[in-house]
């Protein structure tokens, strides 16, 4: 029973990480129709900042990671994607794929191909005993952090004027512009928020692993993107839930698959992804006859 609870909390925490990644990707997709494959390299940039600066000053490291995440996201927007705004979603995806590979090599050139290590927030790696259940403190912190960010983004989208404009632009960019919504501003704000969320993902993952390499962000982005697609990229809530489901599935398969087929857990997740896409091509949580936009 207690191990079940532990596994559940760990799964929720894994789900929370991918839900955050899916949120960051889904926000940008909403306004730009860009499934940003290079989202991982924003995460990686923040992770490098954390690993390098943490031994010097933890507070500075956290602030720096957030600033770097936002800056890299904005840089991507202005240097690459703002030139491609009128292109198809496929073109944008290919460009982001190219950008992802390019940035990985640049990181490799700057920081080397090997991983850098530092123990970031090692205090969080301990377990706490809560009524007989040993809980990984980091799992709890991850869940809380994800919850705070999800609520924060929700409040931003519904309570602020610019958030409302982001929603309008996601629903129908052309009409939003006719109402005076500034396209450049809305896109930049969305990128900035997605960069901030990437920094949060980087924080959780660097505490977990204590290392960062050039392709650090690829895995969470891949699963976040996959989750967002199976949840329905056209609907932010669906995307977030999709990311969560992928994380939970990965974590539970890891704990429960018998050892002889455990190595195939990722294969199972991909099989699941294919099954979901084939059975629900518009996403698990699409409201049936959702408006198809390509």
């Amino acid at each position, binding site marked *: 029973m207690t191990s079940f609870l532990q596994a559940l909390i760990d799964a929720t925490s894994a789900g929370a990480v991918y839900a955050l990644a899916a949120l960051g990707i889904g926000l940008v997709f909403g306004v730009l129709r860009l499934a940003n494959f290079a989202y991982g390299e924003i995460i990686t940039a923040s992770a490098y900042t954390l690993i390098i600066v943490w031994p010097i000053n933890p507070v500075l490291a956290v602030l720096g990671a957030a600033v770097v995440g936002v800056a890299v996201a904005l840089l991507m927007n202005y240097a690459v994607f703002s030139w491609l705004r009128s292109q198809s979603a496929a073109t944008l995806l290919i460009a982001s794929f190219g950008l992802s590979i390019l940035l990985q090599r640049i990181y490799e050139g700057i920081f080397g191909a090997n991983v850098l290590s530092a123990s970031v927030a090692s205090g969080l790696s301990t377990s706490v005993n809560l009524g007989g259940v040993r809980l990984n403190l980091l799992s709890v912190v991850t869940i809380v952090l994800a919850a705070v960010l999800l609520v924060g983004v929700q409040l931003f989208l519904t309570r602020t*004027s610019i958030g*409302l404009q982001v*929603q*309008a632009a996601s*629903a*129908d960019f052309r009409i939003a512009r006719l*109402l*005076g919504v500034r396209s450049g501003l809305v896109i930049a704000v969305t990128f900035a928020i997605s960069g901030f969320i990437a920094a949060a993902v980087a924080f959780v993952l660097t505490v977990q692993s204590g290392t960062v390499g050039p392709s650090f962000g690829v895995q969470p982005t891949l699963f976040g993107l996959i989750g967002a697609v199976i949840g329905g990229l056209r609907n932010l809530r669906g995307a977030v839930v999709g990311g969560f489901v992928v994380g939970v599935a990965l974590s539970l398969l890891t704990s429960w698959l018998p050892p002889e087929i455990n190595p195939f857990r990722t294969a199972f997740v991909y099989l699941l992804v294919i099954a979901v896409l084939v059975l629900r091509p518009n996403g698990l949580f699409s409201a049936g006859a959702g408006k198809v936009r390509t």
Partner: protein
Amino acid sequence: MPEYPTMPESPENAATSSARPEPILDVQNLTVAYGGVTAVAGVTFHVGPGELVGIIGPNGAGKSSTLLALAGAVRGKADRLTFEGTSLLGRKPEQIARSGFALVPEGHHIFGALSVSDNLRLGEVARHGKGRGKEGLAATREWVLELFPILREFLGRPAGLLSGGQQQQLAIARALLSEPRLLVLDEPSLGLSPTAIDTVFEAIAAVQRAGTAVLLVEQRAQQTVAAAARTHVLGEGRITMTLGPADATDAELLAKAYLGS
């Protein structure tokens, strides 16, 4: 030479009321082409301050393309295309919207997932930076909700749940919240019930009475010609005829105008 109504209550009009006022919208030789296909082939017209001008014509005559070009949503070419003396050519749709030009596009396009009140708040985006401040905004909100009382009842509801006629009212209300000096409507009566059409036309008349110029694109020829100071008939991308309010009763002329004879 058409006559412009004078509007003494508005200071900018008072200054020019003796002479012929500058048109608020001046369109000279506008052309719009998509790829190789010409949709608008040299259209010239103007809208004076506080005036209601109509454009009618069959589907595919270039009405929507004309409006979209004015609003900056599609690229057009023109000898002159000015709104309040400033050229609209090459400007972004959001810049044009923020300069006091409000377009209610065909099919109204409200944000169905957002509440009625959020839709209205989005209308206020283009109002940004106007001098009239908070009290001005409150007054505008009040005025708009009086114009469309049904919206007040449904403020908290998702806009997608409104009927077609109510959604059209919401779209017009949303545009009015930007406090435009020119309201441009693309076929507001399309797909509405006769009662809803009456409501929409009454609202348009009220907007004009309040001093806002209106450019009304319609398929309902008779009602438009009756309401507008001038109604231009568009056919195959050109203005083929211009009618005055007196022509509204001439069924034969309207039919001819419409069918393009």
